[in-house]
C-alpha cells in the first residue's frame, strides 16, 4: 500500500466530517472517491497532502501513512507536498508565463540551472500531453490558455516536482467533454509512473478509468473495492442505490 489511512476522524469545529476512515491506496493505480456532495471525499483527499491544515478549527485524529511514514509526525509538510502533488477542481495556473508556472516547483526546491529547468519544463509538459500546444508560447501568460489546457498545465506543474502521488480533486468538473476525455486519457497514461487518487462526481468517469473505487456517504466509507466489482455487484444496499441513481 502506498498510502494507508488508519482510524481517522476529522472535525471542522463541532462538525464530524470524517468518521472512522480506514483505507489503503495501491501504488500505481487510480483510486476513485465517489459519493454525493458533502460526503467527505474531498476532505479526505486534502488530508493526504495536509491542505486541511489551512482550514481553521480543523482537527484530525488517527493516522495517515505514506510508504509507512506518518505524514503528521514523521514528515516535513513541505516535503510531503512535494511527494504528494495536487490538481485542483478549478484550474489555477499562476498569473505568470507557462514556463514559469512549470518551473515554479523545481525553483522552489532549489534548482537554479537554466538548462536543467528547461529540461524539466519540457519533460513535464510532454508528460502532461500539452507540449505541442505550448512549445511556441512558453513565455506567454498561462492565463491566455483554454480551461482544458490550463488544467493540463496544472498537471504538468505538479509533475515538475517529481511527486510519487497525484491527488486530483474533481479535475474535470469545470471542463468541456473533449478536455475531460484528454484529462482522463492522461490520467490512464500517468498511472504507469504515479499513484493517482481522484475525487469525482461522475460515476462513469470512475468506472472508465479507476482501478479501485471508494464510495463515501455522510463522512463514512460505505464500500471500497475493485472498481468493476463495486459497480457490478455492490455489497451494500446504499452503494447500489447511489450507483443506480436513486439518490445523490
Amino acid at each position, binding site marked *: 500500500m502506498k498510502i494507508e489511512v488508519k482510524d481517522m476522524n476529522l472535525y471542522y469545529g463541532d462538525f464530524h466530517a470524517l468518521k472512522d476512515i480506514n483505507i489503503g491506496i495501491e501504488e500505481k493505480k487510480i483510486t476513485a472517491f465517489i459519493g454525493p456532495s458533502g460526503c467527505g471525499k474531498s476532505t479526505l483527499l486534502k488530508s493526504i*497532502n495536509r*491542505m486541511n491544515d*489551512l482550514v481553521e478549527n480543523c482537527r484530525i485524529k488517527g493516522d495517515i501513512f505514506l510508504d509507512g511514514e506518518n505524514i503528521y509526525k514523521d514528515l516535513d509538510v*513541505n*516535503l*510531503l*507536498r*512535494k511527494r504528494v*502533488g*495536487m490538481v*485542483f477542481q*478549478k484550474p*489555477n*495556473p*499562476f*498569473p*505568470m508565463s507557462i514556463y514559469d508556472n512549470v518551473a*515554479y*516547483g523545481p*525553483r*522552489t*526546491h532549489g534548482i537554479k540551472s537554466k538548462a536543467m529547468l528547461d529540461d524539466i519544463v519540457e519533460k513535464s509538459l510532454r508528460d502532461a500531453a500539452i507540449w505541442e500546444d505550448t512549445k511556441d508560447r512558453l513565455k506567454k*501568460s498561462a492565463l491566455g490558455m483554454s480551461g482544458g489546457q490550463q488544467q493540463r498545465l*496544472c498537471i504538468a*506543474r*505538479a509533475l515538475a*516536482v517529481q511527486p510519487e502521488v497525484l491527488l486530483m480533486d474533481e479535475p474535470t468538473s469545470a471542463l468541456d467533454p473533449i478536455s475531460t476525455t484528454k484529462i482522463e486519457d492522461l490520467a490512464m497514461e500517468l498511472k504507469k509512473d504515479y499513484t493517482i487518487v481522484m475525487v469525482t462526481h461522475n460515476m462513469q468517469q470512475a468506472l472508465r478509468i479507476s482501478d479501485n473505487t471508494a464510495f463515501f456517504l455522510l463522512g463514512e466509507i460505505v464500500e471500497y473495492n475493485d472498481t468493476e466489482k463495486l459497480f457490478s455487484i455492490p455489497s451494500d444496499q446504499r452503494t447500489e442505490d447511489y450507483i443506480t441513481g436513486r439518490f445523490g
Partner: protein
Amino acid sequence: MKEKIMKGVFLFAACASILAVGLICYFLLVNGIPGMAKIGVGKFLGGKIWRPNNDEFGILPMIVGSLYVTAGAIIFGVPIGILTSVFMAKYCPKTIYRPLKTAIELLSGIPSVVYGFFGLVVLVPFVRNVGRSLGLGGNGSSIFTASLLLGMMILPTIIGVTESAIRAVPAAYYEGALALGATHEGAVFKVVLPAAKSGVVAGVVLGIGRAIGETMAVIMVAGNQARLPNGIFRGIRTLTANIVLEMGYATDLHREALIATGVVLFVFILAINVSVSLLNRRGQNG
C-alpha cells in the same frame, strides 16, 4: 421620466470631477505659460539661480529638490510599506491586526502640519547630531530629514492600497503554490505578491504623488534654501515650498513664475499617472 432625471443627476455628478480637472488645467496653463515664455523655457527650467528681486527665475534647484526628497521618501517608505502590507495580509495574528490597522489609519489622518512639528522637534535634532557626528555638517533641516518624514507620511497610502491588492489575489494561487511544496514565504513572495503587482505599483505611485505634492511638512524640515544641494544633509527647497513661501507677496512676473512652477509640478504628476497606466497595460498583455 424620473429615471431620465436621475440619469441626468448622475451624469452631472460624474462631469463635476472632469470639469474640476479641466478648470485646474486651464487656469494653470493660461496663467503659467506666458510667464514661462517671458522668462524663457530653458532659463526657467534649467536656470540654477532663483533671485526674484533680480528677475532671475531658475527653478532647477527646486526641481532637483522635489526629485531628491521624493526619491528619498520612496527609499524609506516603499520597502517598509510593502513589507508591512504583506505582514498584515498574510502573517498578522488576529489579535494584533485590529490595533495595527487602527494605528495605520490614524497615521493617514494626522494633519501634515503635525507631521511637520514632529519632524521639527524630533527628526531635525536627530539628523543634526547624525550629520555632525559623521562630519557631514548641516543644521538638521535637510534632504535626509524631509525624506524620512515623507517616507513616514506615504506609508498609510502604500500600505492601504498594497494590502487590499494582496488580499484580492485568489486563494487558489496560494494553495496551488503550497500544494507544490512551497513554504509560506515562498508562496507569498514568489506567487501572491507578484500576482498583486499592479496593485502594489498603484500604491507606490499614489505614495509618490503624495510625496511630490506634500508642502507643509516639507517646508518645516527641509531648510528651504533655493540652491542646488551638495549633500543629503544639506537643506533644499521643493517646488511646492517655493510656491507657498513666496505666493503671499509675489507680484507681476514673480507671481507668474510661481504659477509656472505649479505647471511643472502638475506635469510631474501627470507623467507619473500616465506611466502607471502604461505599465499596467503592459502588465496585462504580458
